[in-house]
Structures are given as structure tokens and as C-alpha cells.
């Protein structure tokens, strides 16, 4: 419990340092080892600062075309999912909400799968800039629909019923998964294989194009949500109390729902469904430094990026030379945390709740 703004700054720096170090090690790790020194040299090379040291064109290609976009994409996705968890928890006023549970991710995945399977038949729509944006756009629309359904079903009079939320989340997830499954069934073989692999989340398709789109949306989204951190704090008191503090709660909720779905859907449309990151990261940060939303949003971006870079590197290493879908790892780690939260929720009902 030390969330005063000044005291969180050392944590931000620690996380930034850890993130940078992990990223440098991650881009050097794999079948072809690249030392941190070489990583730095090739990066400077790419930026136009040539050094006189001998360079290995294969290592340089692997670094710049394969590993770097992948690590950067995983950092952006991790930040997007963790911040989304923070936003949804503030919106539902409940710490056991995250995009994977309330249907945002699977809804977005369904929309993206539609583009995978049917997109090629739409000719003009899939070429050029429109083609690049069609995937995230479809994912956004279906993700928004899924989130809205769960939110409307589980929230009455400003209060969210956890049981209803989890149950309607299950139902919406099931419908979206069925839709995605149906698409995989009617798809031609290579498309179907990629949908199956991708519904467990994978960063193996990372390239610079996806990286730029996800980074742009995530950074812009997070910076915008920072402006709402004060209002989100007030919302923790309850909707009436927030209104008494001068906040237009309906407008706030619409905006947060929209922003949140945007960052999750864009990330999901490139890497698939990665659950539990949005649950675990904000939870750990709350234990470290409280629930002030400005702190949570900044720290979630950094810690989420760190966690995702680490997890993706693990996914590449565990069964190398093959690789594990990243969603399997996040579920193995995240599901127990979720169960534990649920358990302390049940036990804590009489003792002041979760974080008392």
C-alpha cells in the first residue's frame, strides 16, 4: 500500500530496466545465439550508425527481420492486454475481470477468423491499406459486440454480479469459439491449421507491419486512457458517488469500453487469444502498490510488456526447435491465480474482501 505517485516512480524505472534487459536477451536467444554486444551493433547498423566490427549477415537478418519484430510485438501485446485488464476491472468494479473472460478476446478472434477464411474472396478489400486494416477492424467490431453483451447482461443498476458476468462470459466465449471452430472446419487446410494454432495465441507470425499497427494503437490507446485515470478512481466508489464528484459516468463507461475493446481487438487480431495476462499483471501490481488507476495503467503497460516478452521467449525455448502456443503457458500460470482470487473472494466476503 504505497501508491502515492512519487513512490511509484522507482517501480516504473525498475520495470523499464528489466524490460529493456529482457528484450535484449530475448532477441539474442534461439537456435542462433546473438550476444547483447552484437544486438547493439546490428541495431545501430540498422539506424545508420555503421561500426567497423565484422558483421554476420545471417545473424543480422534473423535479428532484424524475425526476432526484433516478434519481441516488439509481444511487448505491445502484453501492454495492451494488461492495461485492458486494468480498465475492465475498474469498469466492472471487480478485480476478477479480464478480456479473455468477458469475451472480448474470443469475440475479436472470431472476427479475425472471418477475415482469414473469407477475406481472400473479397478481392479489392484485401489489397493495400484497406486490406491491412480490415483484419483489426473486423476484430474490433465482433470484440465490441461480445463485450457489450456480457456487460449488459451482468451489470444492472451500476452493479456487476460476478456470477452472472462469469456465466455470460462463458456463453459468449462458447458462441465465439463455435463460430471460430465452424470457420476452421469450412476453411481450406492451411487456413484451418493457422486458426487452430492461433486460437491458443501465438506470436510466430510477427512481422513489421503487424508490429507497427499494434504499437500505434496500443500506445495511443494507453495515453488516452491515462486521461481517464482520475475518473476511473472515482468510479471505484460507485456510480452515484462518481456522479457526485462531477463525473459523467455513462459517457466515461462508453469511452472506456470502446478504447479497451480497440486495444484488445487489434492485439488479438495479430496474435490470437492470450488469456489471463490481463488478470495476473494488474493483480500483482495491486498487491505491490494499491489500486490508484494512473499507477496501475503505467505499471501495467511496463509489467505486461515484460511478462509477455518473457513468456514468448519461454514458448520458443521449451520444446525447441518447435514452439508452444503462448496461450498454453499463460493459462497454466494464470488459471491458478484466477482460482485463488475466486477463492479469496468467497472467503473474504466476511472479512472486507480481496485486498484487505
Amino acid at each position: 500500500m504505497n501508491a502515492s505517485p512519487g513512490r511509484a516512480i522507482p517501480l516504473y524505472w525498475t520495470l523499464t530496466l528489466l524490460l529493456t534487459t529482457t528484450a535484449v536477451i530475448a532477441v539474442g536467444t534461439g537456435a542462433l545465439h546473438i550476444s547483447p554486444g552484437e544486438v547493439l551493433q546490428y541495431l545501430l547498423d540498422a539506424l545508420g550508425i555503421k561500426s567497423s566490427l565484422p558483421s554476420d549477415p545471417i545473424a543480422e537478418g534473423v535479428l532484424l527481420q524475425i526476432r526484433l519484430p516478434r519481441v516488439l510485438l509481444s511487448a505491445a501485446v502484453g501492454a495492451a492486454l494488461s492495461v485492458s485488464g486494468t480498465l475492465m476491472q475498474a469498469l466492472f468494479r471487480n478485480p476478477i475481470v479480464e478480456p479473455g473472460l468477458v469475451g472480448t478476446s474470443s469475440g475479436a478472434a472470431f472476427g479475425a477468423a472471418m477475415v482469414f477464411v473469407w477475406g481472400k474472396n473479397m478481392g479489392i478489400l484485401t489489397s493495400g491499406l484497406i486490406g491491412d486494416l480490415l483484419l483489426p477492424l473486423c476484430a474490433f467490431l465482433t470484440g465490441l459486440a461480445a463485450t457489450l453483451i456480457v456487460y449488459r447482461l451482468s451489470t444492472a443498476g451500476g452493479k456487476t454480479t460476478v456470477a452472472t458476468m462469469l456465466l455470460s462470459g462463458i456463453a459468449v466465449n462458447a458462441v465465439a469459439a463455435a463460430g471460430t471452430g465452424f470457420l476452421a472446419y469450412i476453411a481450406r487446410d492451411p487456413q484451418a491449421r493457422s486458426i487452430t494454432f492461433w486460437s491458443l495465441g501465438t506470436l510466430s507470425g510477427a512481422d513489421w507491419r503487424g508490429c507497427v499497427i499494434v504499437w500505434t494503437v496500443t500506445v495511443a490507446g494507453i495515453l488516452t486512457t491515462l486521461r481517464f485515470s482520475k475518473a476511473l478512481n472515482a468510479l471505484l466508489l460507485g456510480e452515484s458517488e462518481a456522479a457526485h464528484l462531477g463525473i459523467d459516468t455513462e459517457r466515461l463507461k462508453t469511452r472506456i469500453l470502446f478504447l479497451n475493446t480497440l486495444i484488445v481487438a487489434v492485439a488479438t487480431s495479430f496474435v490470437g487469444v492470450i488469456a489471463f495476462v490481463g488478470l495476473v499483471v494488474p493483480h500483482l501490481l495491486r498487491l505491490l502498490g494499491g489500486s490508484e488507476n494512473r499507477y496501475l495503467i503505467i505499471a501495467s503497460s511496463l509489467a505486461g510488456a515484460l511478462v509477455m516478452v518473457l513468456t514468448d521467449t519461454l514458448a520458443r525455448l521449451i520444446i525447441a526447435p518447435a514452439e508452444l502456443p503462448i496461450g498454453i503457458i499463460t493459462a497454466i500460470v494464470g488459471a491458478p491465480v484466477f482460482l485463488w482470487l475466486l477463492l479469496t473472494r468467497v472467503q473474504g466476503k466476511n472479512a472486507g474482501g480481496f485486498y484487505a
Partner: protein
Amino acid sequence: MLEVDGASRTLGGMQIIDDVSVRFKPGHLSVIIGPNGSGKTTLLRMMSGELKPTRGLILYDGKAIAGTGMEALARKRAVLSQSSDLSFPLTVDEVVMMGRYPHFVLKPSRHDEEVCGAAIAAMGIDQIRGRNYLTLSGGEKHMVHFARVLAQIWIPPEDHHRYLLLDEPTAFLDINHQHLFLKMAKGMAERDTVVVAVLHDILLAAQYADFIVALRNGRKIAEGDVDSMITPGLFRDLYGMNGKIFRGDGMTYPIIVF
């Protein structure tokens, strides 16, 4: 001056408030009494701007509330709810700082921090400032919210009055805290604030109120000072109960026993 002018409100097809007009003056601790379901809380919610009247007007300083921005209103009007279901770990300081939210955009100023400190000191809860809100007792939590509400309107605005609305501030509190809360409310009233409280406890109303409004079935049936309001007749009308009024030697307020 806070005026309710011919206000009515229906909720779910039911007429909850029916053509109520009343004026609350600064300097007075005004108390709304009435049986359960008489519309006290609904009236207070309309006065706070949370509910719009289906007919009639709410006026602050002679200006209709409908034309005032929510944030501008929040800078001069604070509301203490019966209970808050905050279930996230925030420190006492952070909760009190929320009262300053209408006054700053991104980061609290030094002045905001000082106001919070003063409000916390006024409530006498300095020793729990750094504590996790969730670990506090019910009484302490309510004190924190009172401090938050005080911080919200700590500095009187230059060109208008301050308004403090309290919805059953003494429910769930022990006797010591009940009197502490009403003394604080009275203190605010004495500093030129319009203070309106919904109270169930007639004894407390008799002891602290300067002005009492009685509601029954959504209608105002009487208003006036303590001596004209605390009468056996009114309580028969309001609650259907026969009460006896006592007044001790040297006591400035009556006691009613049923």
C-alpha cells in the same frame, strides 16, 4: 439557498415525490424526516442532481441545476451516501483526495494536498492516513468518506454558497460517531453552508436540527423549527404512533418517547 420548486418524480410508474416545494437556507442544519418509503432519499437524490425531477425545478443560488455542468456543481456541492461499496485497496489519503477531483485536471496541487490534510485532521483520523481502506472498521470508513466530502467543498466558492447533502449519515454508527457526525454537519452549517440531512433518528433531529421538513407518501406535510415540529400530533400523522414529549430542566431541545 437551495430551493426545491414544485418538484415531482416518478420511478417505475410510482409517484415517489409529489409536488414538493421547500427552501433550505445557509447557516441552518436542515433535516428531512419521514417514514420508510416517504421519498426522503429520492428528494435528496434530486437535490444532488443525480435524479432529474419529472416536473418542477431544483435551484442552487436561484439557478436551475439542469443548466449547471456536473463538474461545476461538484465544486460547490458534496454528497455523503449511506454507504459505499469500494472493494479495491486504496489508502485513506487516496480516498480523501477523490474529494478534490472536481478541482484539478491531472495532478493534485500542493493546495489540494493541504485541503485533504485539513479535512482529515478535522475528522480526527490522522492516525489511519496511510492505511488500506479495506482494513478499516465500518465507522472508520464512514469517517474517511466524510473527510472526502469535506475536502470537496472545503474552500467556500467566491460567488456562491457551499452545499452539503447527507443521506442518513448516522445509520450504522455508534452513539459517539453519530454525535460527532452531526456536530461536524452543524459546524459546516454555521460556516455559511447549506446542510441538508436525511435522518431517521428523531432524537438526533430534535437535538441538532435548525429546520425540519416532514415527508409522507412523497408529499411535504409540515416544515418548521424543532419546537413547532416535534409534537405528538405530527408523529401521529407521520408514523401513526403516539409519542410523549419531555423537556428536561435547562435543556434546549425536546425529547420524544414512544
